């Protein structure tokens, strides 16, 4: 049968008609067409870490404008202190902290740590937020500066105000590589007005490394290590910590094991006396409760 004959047949009429209608009905697959038209959003990467602390140190996380975080941190005694001390649980140090986000970039916080009776205050500023879309920013970058006042009395030395002060400055650089994995590097500079001996350097450079691996949507495994570049005192060790985060809406619970007992950067980076590998390990936790004091687009 030739093509012409085929077209002439009534079947061809029906075929052509249905073909024509078919192309119109084909538009019914609207969703598929529509999916192609979706404009990708400029996506600021959020939730690089669950908490504003990785374990001991800060993460690049800053809270949204108007958020107040109340942080309760505990470090117990050493696990290797034996059953008489109930493996360190008899001894507990606590830090209470309040941190307010003046805007999405700027957080200011204060705290009081019972270990060596330290008051501390810090400023944290988000310089860059990791982003995907029309503008691609590969990492989040946050500046952190902390000043602490160690008010613990020493009978052998009159503790003037200057002697009590110490400073820490950090540049926190982190990237959320995937939904599960985030890594952070934190170059750190610490200045202590008073150091244990004349041989000790007042200035210390260190580099922090850490990350988290998400186990489920609400839990993650964290690790953190601070390497001291110019340690001048053999009695101190680098800080090692492993932790486990559980997040439940407005709370973050962080449980960890670390060789540090101090809970501020000026304490745990230069002056950690425990050797993690010898079992000088402290069980500790941070509990963060977030309150939104000021809502977006609303006055007080």
């Amino acid at each position, binding site marked *: 049968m030739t093509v012409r004959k085929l*077209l*002439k047949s*009534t079947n*061809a*009429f029906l075929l*052509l*008609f249905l073909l*024509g*209608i078919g*192309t*119109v*009905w084909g*538009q*019914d697959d*609207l*969703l598929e*067409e*529509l*999916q192609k*038209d*979706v404009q990708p*959003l400029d*996506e600021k990467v*959020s*939730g690089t870490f669950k908490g504003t602390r990785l374990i001991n140190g800060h993460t690049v996380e800053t*809270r*949204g*404008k108007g*958020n107040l975080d109340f942080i309760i941190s505990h470090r117990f005694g050493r696990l290797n202190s034996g059953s008489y001390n109930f493996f360190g649980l008899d001894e507990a140090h606590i830090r209470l902290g309040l941190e307010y986000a003046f805007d*999405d970039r700027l957080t200011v916080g204060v705290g009081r740590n019972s270990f060596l009776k330290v008051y501390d205050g810090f400023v944290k500023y988000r310089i860059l937020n990791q982003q995907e879309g029309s503008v691609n920013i590969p990492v989040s970058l946050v500046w952190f500066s902390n000043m602490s006042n160690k008010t613990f009395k020493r009978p052998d030395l009159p503790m003037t105000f200057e002697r009590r002060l110490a400073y820490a400055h950090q540049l926190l650089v982190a990237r959320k590589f995937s*939904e599960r994995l985030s890594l952070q590097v934190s170059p750190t500079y610490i200045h202590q007005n008073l150091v244990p001996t004349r041989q000790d350097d007042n200035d210390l450079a260190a580099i922090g490394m850490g990350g988290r691996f998400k186990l489920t*949507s*609400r839990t993650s495994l964290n690790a953190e290590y601070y390497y001291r570049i110019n340690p001048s005192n053999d009695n101190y060790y680098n800080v090692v910590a492993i932790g486990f985060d559980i*997040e*439940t*809406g*407005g709370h973050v619970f962080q449980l960890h094991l670390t060789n540090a007992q101090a809970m501020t950067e000026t304490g745990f980076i230069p002056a950690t006396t425990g050797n993690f590998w010898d079992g000088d390990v402290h069980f500790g936790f941070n509990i963060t409760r*977030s309150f*939104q004091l000021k*809502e*977006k*687009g*609303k006055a007080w």
Partner: protein
Amino acid sequence: MKTYIIAIVLWTVVATPLCGQSYRTVESSVSFYSSAPLEDIKADNEEVIGVFNAATGAIAFVVQIKGFQFAKSLMQQHFNENFMESDKYPRATFEGRLSGYNLNASGKQDASVKGKMTIHGVTREMEIDGEFEVKDGLKMKAVFPIELEDHDIDIPKILFQKIAEEVEVTVNFTFKKD
């Protein structure tokens, strides 16, 4: 030859009105509201696009989950990370057929739509009643409940008081001819 002409004429008569009835959203918003003992949760989203074919009643829309804006930024983060898993399921979609509307009538009319709603990667058949109006294009509005469980959206036990099992969704579309 005669059959050709008949085919073309018939095709034109039947198909032309079908082709010329395609509408696109020019303004759209999707919001949800959930009331729970501790906290009311509300979010709005304008990252929504839709198409409607007035001749066939076929309608479809796509909602970008990350476009939901909350008053509390932490809540927004948890919504994306924990509940909607928006990295894994970035879009919610609907595809269905609208019926009961009259393009030539004025004023608000009741219409209903039946189709497939996909949220959090789970597709469910839904029938939704809403409002339809021919005014500066086409306007559609509907308020309907969505059960979180229907779409496998988990609420941790410890949070159960904070989040309702059912959320009320409001959609508002303005369509203009394509």
